[in-house]
């Protein structure tokens, strides 16, 4: 699914990623844990093609394709999805208009006809129910006036609707209370399948109690310093990141 080799990236003249290697197979859920400033969000930015970040060295293959040569929208069409740490507000654009444009752009890219309006609304309703979003949110402007928890649920709703093959959850658990965390986790778990993979980026163990990863990586100062199983989560919880 994903092969990262010797990835170096910077923002401005500050090098943040200093040689990342990562392999993710279909069906696997990987956790990337690390202290603030380790480069976790830079990794997700580079994977999704955020314009301000520059890759200076290394390669990323996604489903055998050169990911770095693809535009952000092409990556989305190929099944990549990022749940944003800080979801963006888009005044004047409703969730329905936003997601309709997203779904139909992907269908167009794959040579399919646009979805019928009725079918789309039914699908939206079904996916919103998955994260307990009230139906009236369909008419709300994207993230405008949403609480922190509502924004994160909106991200998982979009993920459910777009059915990505590789999902990146960037600090999706930050700022969530226990109830919202459980709703989000249930949503993510529902979407797990032997074909679909995910990267869960977090500096905290809480979400990982609900969404159990297959592999855990520790990211520190731009490098993966340790890779293991779920036992690493406990080790981090009891002794912090200094031990690595």
């Amino acid at each position, binding site marked *: 699914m994903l092969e990262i080799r010797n990835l170096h990236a910077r923002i401005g003249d500050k090098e943040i990623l200093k040689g990342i290697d990562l392999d993710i197979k279909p069906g696997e859920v990987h956790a990337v844990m690390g202290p603030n400033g380790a480069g976790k969000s830079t990794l997700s930015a580079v994977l999704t093609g955020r*314009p301000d970040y520059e890759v200076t060295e290394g390669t990323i293959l996604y489903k055998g394709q050169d990911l770095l040569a693809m535009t952000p929208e092409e990556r*989305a069409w190929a099944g990549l999805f990022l749940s944003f740490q800080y979801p*963006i507000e*888009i005044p*004047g654009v409703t969730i329905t208009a936003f997601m309709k444009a*997203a779904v139909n*752009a992907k269908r167009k890219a794959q040579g399919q006809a646009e979805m019928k309006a009725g079918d789309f609304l039914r699908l939206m309703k079904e996916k919103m129910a998955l994260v307990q979003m009230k139906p009236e949110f369909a008419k709300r402007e994207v993230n405008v006036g949403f609480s922190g928890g509502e924004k994160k649920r909106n991200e998982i709703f979009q993920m459910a609707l*777009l059915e990505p093959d590789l999902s990146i959850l960037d600090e999706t658990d930050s700022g969530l209370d226990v109830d919202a965390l459980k709703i989000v986790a249930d949503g993510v778990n529902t979407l797990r399948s032997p074909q679909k993979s995910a990267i869960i980026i977090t500096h905290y163990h809480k979400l990982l109690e609900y969404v159990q990863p297959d592999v855990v990586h520790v990211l520190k100062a731009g490098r993966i310093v340790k890779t293991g199983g779920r036992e690493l989560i406990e080790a981090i919880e009891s002794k912090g990141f200094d031990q690595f």
Partner: protein
Amino acid sequence: MGHGHYIAPPAGQYLVKAGEKLELQFVVLPGESRDIELSIDLTGPGAEAHVKALYLCKADEKVNFHVVMHHKAAGCKSTQLINGIAGGQAQVHFDGTIVVAPDAQQTEAYQENHNIVLTPEAKVETKPQLEIYADDVKCSHGATVGQLNPDELFYMRSRGIPEAEARMLQMLSFLSPVIPEGREEEIEQAIKTL
């Protein structure tokens, strides 16, 4: 009037008497330069005036929008909402004044002028002004000149919306409060030429 790219009542001076309501809508599409001079006097109690305008300009086009909203009587209400997008080397100048006369108590007057510039060469100047001589009034004005928000753009692209379509969504949502009903399609086509 009578020009393909421009809809509007004639610019000039309007008197709005007691209890009357004036509604004006201006649309300036790419392909021409325009000077719009507008002077509106609210002369009798309870008079209302509402002005909406949008302009889209490109190349070396110039749009000048000059409006004086004069509240001369008590209990009158006025709103102005004027939004535009400038590309190319276009030049936009907005100059809007709200005057509230000493006798015009219980006035409500609002003015907004918002602009997006698409290129470093496009220039927008906006000068909203208030001259208030009465004390019991609700007045506000606001003016902005900005660019399309790059964070919004990336968010939309990350969901699979192509860049051109994402920019279109941003521009349409920015203009939506001033697009006349039923003309969305035409405005969308005009934006594509910017």
